[in-house]
């Protein structure tokens, strides 16, 4: 392990880290923005759920490299391809959690809100979404961590990120570079994860620090992945 390599190449390393952070954070955020309205629709009109779930499962099964490659003709060998790919994956994780989180809001709570005179939209925004936040954020956490890690695969199609350290280190037979890449990606992912945990605590002071709001059962419905530890894994 050649420690001196690090400071002498620090500016490049830093650039790559920023790149990775960009790819890994923007994508799940876009995924979140798309998932919430879609999830609200799916939670409201339940018949949409089974087909949505099938589509999500199928898309999520597509290996990342293959997905990026499939996007190349349309979006070229650019950052956009990777961002779109990662957004799609994040969507696959966050959307079921939005649906699950909303459906997990206890019925008595919703009924009380309606009985007190909340209209459907207001109830959604002020009651249901806040209560669903822990589960949604759990999905976002998975999305962010996976995206930060998967961004490195984009290097194979030439999209720059910390993955470059892997590719370069392999070509030059230089383990130090690879270790640095591994370390930074993991640190970045864990840091984002912890930040999101903090965000969840800040947004949901009533929750006891678990990945679900009180009253939402962790009990898994067979066949419907709703657990805050998403059944989908990449």
């Amino acid at each position, binding site marked *: 392990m050649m420690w001196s390599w690090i400071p002498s190449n620090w500016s490049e390393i830093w650039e790559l880290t920023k790149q990775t952070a960009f790819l890994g954070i923007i994508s799940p955020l876009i995924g979140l923005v798309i998932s919430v309205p879609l999830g609200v629709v799916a939670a409201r009109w339940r018949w949409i759920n089974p087909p949505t779930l099938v589509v999500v499962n199928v898309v999520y099964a597509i290996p990342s*490299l293959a997905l990026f490659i499939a996007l190349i003709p*349309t979006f070229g060998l650019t950052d956009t391809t990777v961002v779109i790919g990662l957004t799609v994956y994040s969507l696959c994780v966050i959307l079921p959690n939005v649906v699950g989180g909303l459906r997990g809001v206890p019925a008595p709570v919703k009924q009380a809100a309606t009985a007190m005179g909340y209209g459907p939209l207001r109830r959604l925004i002020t009651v249901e979404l806040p209560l669903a936040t822990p589960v949604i954020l759990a999905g976002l956490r998975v999305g962010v961590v996976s995206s930060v890690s998967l961004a490195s695969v984009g290097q194979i199609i030439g999209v720059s990120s910390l993955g470059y*350290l892997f590719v370069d280190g392999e070509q030059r037979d230089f383990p130090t570079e690879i270790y640095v890449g591994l370390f930074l990606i993991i640190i970045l992912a864990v840091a984002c994860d912890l930040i999101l945990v903090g965000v969840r605590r800040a947004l949901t002071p009533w929750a006891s620090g678990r990945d679900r709001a009180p009253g939402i059962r962790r009990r*898994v419905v067979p066949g419907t992945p709703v657990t805050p530890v998403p*059944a989908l894994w990449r």
Partner: protein
Amino acid sequence: MSFFSYAWDWVTTDANWHGPGSIPHQLLAHLGYSFLPLLIAGLIAVPAGVVIGHTGRGATLVINLANAWRAIPTLGLLVLIAVYQWPTLLTWLIPLTVLAIPPILVNVYEGVDGVDPGVKDAAKGVGMTPWQQVVKVEVPIAMPLILIGLRTSAIFVVATATIAAYIGLGGLGRFIIDGLANTQYGPVAGGSLLVILLALIVLGVFALLSRLLVPAGLRGAGKDNQ
């Protein structure tokens, strides 16, 4: 030309189906690279997950395992091992197996741990030995999650085996990596398409397994449990 036309052209070229390094050959290799780690990981992780789920010991470790492992970039790990030049078998088998364990372990644990406490109490109360409780009650009820864990891991190894071509392994990823090196989009698209199809077949196999292995009594319960 679109992705599909490139891919289709290439896949339907007869020459690609014959000779060394052809589609059938790489497909078989890919299956080997995927199936073997999955099998070994399953043999380790399923019993381990069942024990941890039933006894509750080691649970905190498992819960945190999921997040930790998700952060590890597989390309980096593979490349690291290639650089250290381990003998071929170890280069891919051990890392792929080790990486395939967490999804199975976490989901099996969640499944067994998540069995209704009333049901677990009843199983103990009617006089089942711990072994009987696990085998006759907890595992069958946890089966949907166990299968989800195995399926997730299966998809994962198929994807990782694809990337493993980068460090010189065979498999369908070979077409992709070589094609990228030679800027031939045909095999790149074609290889990708084949990998996608393989992943979909894996999904289908697990859907079938779910039909076969998940007890009938659990299927209808889904709607009522919300």
